């Protein structure tokens, strides 16, 4: 599903379910609407973020991300080291924002890789994409802390 389609569907659902619009209905109906509205918000948030979306999608296939996995991939780790060092040494918000936009690009690129891998049922590659996105997301969190 495309992102703009997602937003339209989200707005449609919210029109039906928003608590403010159902105040004339019964107590039970209002509670139901509020609960569903919250679930729709949660779903929207999960699906619009490339990383949480990827994790959710593979979960539907029974593929779970290993929380305690350790890796030795030299290329990926060297790249992450470099990024984290750059963030550490960045002297102003301009430098940080530059790294941030690099990270956004990488996230988008690997989100596309994830889609390709998922569509061809290549779950090894799908998980590899998730690994990368997790590292980029984490690095972004460090930037946000510094800004």
């Amino acid at each position, binding site marked *: 599903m495309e992102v703009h389609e997602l937003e339209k569907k989200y707005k449609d659902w919210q029109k039906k379910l928003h608590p403010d619009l159902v105040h004339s209905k019964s107590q039970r109906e209002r509670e139901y609407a509020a609960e569903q509205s919250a679930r729709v918000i949660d779903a929207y948030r999960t699906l619009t973020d490339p990383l949480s979306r990827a994790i959710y999608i593979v979960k539907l296939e029974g593929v779970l991300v*290993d929380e305690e996995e350790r890796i030795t991939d030299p290329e990926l*780790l060297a790249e992450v*080291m470099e990024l984290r060092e750059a963030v550490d040494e960045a002297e102003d918000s301009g430098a940080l924002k530059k790294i941030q936009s690099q990270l956004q690009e990488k996230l988008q690129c690997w989100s596309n890789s994830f889609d390709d891998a998922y569509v061809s049922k290549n779950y090894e590659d799908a998980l590899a994409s998730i690994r990368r996105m997790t590292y980029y997301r984490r690095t972004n969190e460090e930037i946000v802390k510094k800004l």
Partner: protein
Amino acid sequence: MLKHLTNTVIGQHLRSSAAVGGASLRRMYHERVVDHYNNPRNVGSFDKNDSNVGTGLVGAPACGDVMKLQIRVDEKSGKIVDACFKTFGCGSAIASSSVATEWVKGKQMEEVLSIKNTEIAKHLSLPPVKLHCSMLAEDAIKAAVKDYEAKRLKSNGHEEKAADA
């Protein structure tokens, strides 16, 4: 009435010592981790192209941790004469790699391969959820040794080729 008074006094004494014991236990629980975090030993980088240097680079993607541990080995004795680390991650990961660099210094390479993550975890009183941080440090030590040995083999190979020619 005297019995009641005695019980009350004893009861209070037990309660207060349990409170003191509990508080000092809480302090010890994090003390070493905090120490390594605030005063990390051996943070830094060696030249990874140096023939005496072995570099171990490991990571835990789910936490976003990345850990680099380097050893400088004396060629003749096979002893690790210096070590340094650079870790981006949680306090437990940083402390684990800091401890690892301390423990490998002055030891033979074969010796450090037997350093177990459980020893590091015990030294730092790591909770179960942080055990994998100590595993990462054990991995890093092994990777650094492996890297050094691979370098040695490669350079020995070149020496032999030169001798044949």
